[in-house]
Each structure stands twice: as C-alpha cells, then as structure tokens.
C-alpha cells in the first residue's frame, strides 16, 4: 500500500474518533441535567397529586385563605441543573423578550382557577431574555434551580431558577 493512501485513510478515522468523543461529551452534559416532574418538587410527605384546578366556577370564588396549601420544598434540589416542562407566565418583558417569568404546571394559572401552591411555581429569570411564542404553548425550561426565601403566612421559601433556555415541548 502506498504511503499516501495510508494518510488518506487515517484522516477519516481521526474524524470518527473525534466525533465519537464529541458524542460522548454531549451525552455526559445531558446526563448532568436532571429532568424533573412537578411532583419531584414536593417533599415526600406531600407527594400526591397536586390539587387539581377546580375548573372555573365564577359564581362563587372561595376566599383564598380557605384552601389547604401544601408548602414544603425539597432543599436537596438547590443548585441542580434541571429541565422542567411547564407554561411560562411572563413578568418582565424587555424589548419584546421575557427576562423574568413564573413557570407553572398548568395553563391559565394566572386567571380564574386557584393558583398553584407555592411549591408548584418556579420563578425563572433569564440573564439572556428569551422570546416566547404563545403563552398557550408548553415548553421545557432548562436552568439551575435555587431556593427563594420569603416570609409570608403561606410559606417560607419557594423555587427560583437561573434559566438558560427554553425549547418546545412535544406531546
């Protein structure tokens, strides 16, 4: 075999190895991001179906304080890179892009239905504001989870997230 042939073979092999490395690396990165479901945000003793939104009974809005509200959180989640599916409720919009939002497990959390309990809301801030399509579309939000302390009659702390990006949620 002439030597130049060997060189031309060696190159694709090198590329293959490189590609394989890249694949492994990206798989590694994916593994570091934990996919969460909303129940994972509840502590073990509260792990049940979150109270289903009682669909719109306009005639009698029950006073807010009369709900039983689960409030516990899971401190171990602090600092983890996670990916959560949900609906984005925009709070701050900068130049047409969302810089701060609340992530909630069901649409319409801001109207009519009782709001999700404090441990079923994530306050997501985006250092790089993101564009959202329609508020009706569910998305995956990726970012580092944190705890947000606040004192109220309901709860001590809730979840916050430094959002890195969103992607479309496919059913």
């Amino acid at each position: 075999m002439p030597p130049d042939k060997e060189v031309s073979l060696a190159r694709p092999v090198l590329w293959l190895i490189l590609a394989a490395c890249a694949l492994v690396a990206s798989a590694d990165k994916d593994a570091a991001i934990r996919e969460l479901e909303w129940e994972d945000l509840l502590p073990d003793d509260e792990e049940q179906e979150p109270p289903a939104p009682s669909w719109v009974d306009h005639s009698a809005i029950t006073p807010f304080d009369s709900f039983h509200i689960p409030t516990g959180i899971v401190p171990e989640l602090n600092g983890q890179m996670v990916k959560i599916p949900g609906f984005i409720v925009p709070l701050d919009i900068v130049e047409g892009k969302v810089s701060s939002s609340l992530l909630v497990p069901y649409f319409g959390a801001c109207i009519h239905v009782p709001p999700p309990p404090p441990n079923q809301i994530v306050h997501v801030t985006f250092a790089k504001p993101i564009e959202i399509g329609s508020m009706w579309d569910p998305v995956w939000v990726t970012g580092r989870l944190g705890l947000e302390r606040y004192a109220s009659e309901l709860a001590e702390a809730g979840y916050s997230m430094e959002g890195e990006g969103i992607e479309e949620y496919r059913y």
Partner: protein
Amino acid sequence: MRGRVLVSLAVRSLANRRLTAGLTVLSVAVSVALLIGVDRLRAEARASFTSTISGADLIVGARSGPINLLLYSVFRIGDATNNISWTSYGEIAARPEVAWTIPISLGDAHRGFRVLGTDTGYFAHYRFGRERSLEFAEGEVFTRVNDAVLGADVASALGYAVGDRIIVSHGIGDVSFEQHDELPFLVTGILRRTGTPVDRTVHVTLAGIEAIHADDDPRRYAGQTVDATGAVAGALEPEAITACIVGLKSRLMVFGLQRFINGYEREPLMAIVPGVTLQQLWELVGVAETALLGVSAFVIAAGLVGLLTTLLTSLAERRREMAVLRSMGAGPGMVFGLLIAEAVILAGIAAVAGVTAIHAGMFAARPFVLERFGLYLAPGLPGWFDGTVVVVVTFAAGLIAALPAWRAYRFSLADGLSIRT
C-alpha cells in the same frame, strides 16, 4: 475564466443600457427598503411598547377587562369604569407580601395632556425598559398640594420650565370652561425623556387632585405639605383612586395576592400581571404587523416581476447583440449565463442599495421619529434578516431570469442573423 468573461460582458452590456438598468435597480431597491423598514419598525414598536413598564408585579383596578385596565393605567388610553376606594387601597398596601405600591388617580387634564395624581413612591418605584427608573432632568419631586412634575414631552411641547405656574382643568378634554376657583400648580420638576407615556403626563399629588375637585375654594390648600401617601391627613384625603401598581417582596407571591384581590369581597377589584397582559395585547396587535410584513413581501415580488419584464423587453432590442456574441463563438450556454448574470447583478446591487438606504434613512430620521411619534429607534447595523433578504432576492432574480435566458438561448442565432422583411 469563463465566469469572469461572463460577468464583465454582463456589466458592460448593463452599462450600455444604464437608464433602464438603473430604474430596475431603483424599483427593486425601494421594495427591499420597504420590507426591511417595516420589519425594523415592527421590532422597534414592539420593544418600545413592551418596555413601557417593568418590575411591577400587579396592577389593581376596578373589575373590567385586563387589557382595558392596562391601557388606562399604563398607556393613558381610554378610561376607568370605576375606582378603588381609599380604604381598600390601604388594605392592599398593608398586606405582608407587598413591598411597595403606587397609587394612580386619573381623570383630569392640562391642555390635552393627562394629569396623574400619585405619591412620591411613583418616582422611587416606577420602572421601564431594562429596570430603568425615572430621573429628573430639572428640579425635584413634589412636596406640596399644588406642586407638579412634568413629563419631558409636556415640558417641551408647552415650553414650560421649573417655576412656571399651570392650571389643571377638570375633565380630560383640551379645553375646559370651568374657570372658577382655579388653583395654580407650580412646576417643581421635569423628568428626563423615557420614550413611554410618562413623557406625556403631568404628575401631581393625590391631595392636589382632591383640591381641584373640592367644594370650597381650592386656593386655601395652596402650599400645604403632603404626607408620604400623597394626601393631607384630615383635610385632603382621597376617597378613591383609579388604580394602583403593586410591587411584591417575592415574585412567587404574585398569584397568591392576585387571587386575594380578584376575590376581594368589599368591592369588585381586579389584579393583572402586567407582563401577561402586555403579551396578550401584543398577540392581538401582532396580527396587523404580520399583515404589514406580508404586504411588503408582495411588493418585493412586484419589484422582481418588474425586473423580469425589463429583461424580457430588452431581448427584442438586443437581438443583434446576442447574434454577434453567437457569431463570435459564444455558445448558447454563454448567452443563457449572460442573462442570468445580468439579473443577479441587478438584483444584488438593488438589494444591497435598499438595505443601505433604509438603514441610513432610519438613522437620519431618529430625532424626528422620536419627537413626532415618541418611538425610539435604536441605532443598529444590518442583521441576519437583512442578509437573508439580500440573498433571497438575488437568488429569486437569478431563478426568474431563467425565462428570458431560455428565450435568448433558443432564438439568439436564428433570430438575429436572419433578415426580416
């Protein structure tokens, strides 16, 4: 090598017909400029629109519709259906999760500009754009019943300066004929331009609003100092305000307080999350902007059809040119390529010229647009959208030029050399 000959031939041939070629370039350039212009304006309008308020967690008003509440409380468009009583406002402001509140009292005007009654919290907590707060260009915040702080547009349009005295009329019309018992307001401050409706607002204290509606002579309240709530306790306490903006200690409590206010039993109140309502409103307005963009795309199509027409008509007068080329040894493929090259060159020049012209034009028009329409055009370099338009237009021109090119290819030799009688 062949390619270079082709391009140089095309360029020379075009230079020979510079008038029609120039006009074709102009028509395509104008259509490209229109599309880019519409896209830029749409992006700027959206940015400016959504930057009107930020950092606020809830806006509270009488129960009506969310968009209506947002429009009258933030954009000063339309009117409130009802008020919030002063006691309800106090109860909301005293909730443990509330960090700050800004009361808003609307309904009066000064020479066509809306008058807004509020307290000093307005200047401390109101945020717009990227967390920017209000700044004074001149003077300072109001402290007395008849002090006023003007938005930048009010001051420049009416030529006011700090120290001037103005009359606030009842009602929101341009002119009011209720001239009795007028209480002159002293301009104590002028705000820096924000590019939001704040620029077109006259800000006074809540007590000032009460005073001009007082049954007795309002002048007796002149010069009295107001307290932190914008009122004069005991004498000029408002019975009601139009709306209020609420900031919370933690944004996780937004839904909780919203629920509390929407279910408030003493009077029908409504709380909206401004970001949500801005988004809803923009989704509504967005249909019109998409339509506008669609129209401009059609204008580009029309421009390209014009280019096609020019090329096709030029074929008749260029029979000789083609025949000479063929007889000199140019193959039919060369003739085909020549026409494609012409179209691509024309469209490419036109697209680049259009993009350059619109960006330069918008840059030059910035002061005028800001003054006239209150729309701030951020100076920006052409982006990927502009690049895409140039590429697509050039490519499309090359594609449609296939028709005249094919005709020239088919007929060039026989047509040009045979003598018609």
